[in-house]
């Protein structure tokens, strides 16, 4: 007989919609979702995204720890192929930090983000160039700082 489930942990994929594109001349090797522009020969573009309300269930667990571990693994896989600065078009869509604190946090992690007034395009280009040279710890610190760029979450469902 099937056991009745009274508590469940659902790993959900968060919703990001394409809202525009970044035209680029060279494609960073890690980028997966590059497109050829049909209207301009040789022109390439990378989609820009914005977070929308909603999430799609991916996997269910009875054990919270296992759900969290699965969520972390999927989150890491998602981050391996993206530029987080293309997920949102304003700093407040990336992070709860203000621009100054974000920069300080990254400097403390041994990174050298663009100086001066925050320019979204400059930060995207900086990450494209810096990404392959980041240490595991730097990747982790960056992900901690960009706390609004998330692709998965765990939701608890109860009876």
């Amino acid at each position, binding site marked *: 007989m099937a056991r009745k*489930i009274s508590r469940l942990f659902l790993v*959900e994929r968060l919703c990001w919609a394409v809202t525009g594109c970044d035209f680029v001349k060279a494609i960073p090797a890690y980028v997966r979702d590059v497109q050829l522009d049909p209207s301009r020969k040789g022109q390439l573009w990378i989609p820009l995204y914005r977070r929308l309300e909603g*999430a799609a*269930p991916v*996997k*269910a667990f*009875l054990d919270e720890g296992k759900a969290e571990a699965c969520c972390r693994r999927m989150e890491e896989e998602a981050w391996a192929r993206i530029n987080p600065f293309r997920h949102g078009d304003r700093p407040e869509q990336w992070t709860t930090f203000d621009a100054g604190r974000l920069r300080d946090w990254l400097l403390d992690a041994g990174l050298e983000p663009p100086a001066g007034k925050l320019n979204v395009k400059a930060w995207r280009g900086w990450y494209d160039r810096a990404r392959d040279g980041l240490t595991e710890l730097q990747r982790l610190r960056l992900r901690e700082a960009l706390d609004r760029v998330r692709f998965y979450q765990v939701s608890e469902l109860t009876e």
Partner: protein
Amino acid sequence: MARKQVTVYAVQPVHWAYNDEYYYREDEGDPEGDRLMSLKSFLRRDRAEAHLREAERRHRRGLNPFNYGGYGERLADYGTLAPAQFQERLRELGLQPPDLGRRGRAPGHALWEWWEQAAEGMTAEQQDGVWELLDRVRFYTVVPLQVELEG
């Protein structure tokens, strides 16, 4: 060995697109696309339906239901009630119903205009009551989803 699955009940948005005259339902979904994103998932259908009712109520505020599904001149575009039943139920809500032909026709966007004029004088309960009668105008739906279950 077959993988274990569990059913969850997801509250999902219904997609309406605008055609320069009114909003029409877009029901064909891309299974991988954003349109199938759930607002929230539940273990029990009744909990999902309670969440859906609350989400519907929030979404409806300030909207004219007769903008959704047609030109505001044919009752059948908005609900499945027969015209006489619809009018009777409006009277039960304490409202003066719009004039409707035998087949539920109200030429010249009259249903849309009826709402524009009547809504201001309605209580929140009366507005909810009218929306409930128009069962083809819904912004959310509850969908049972099979999700792979791990221990």
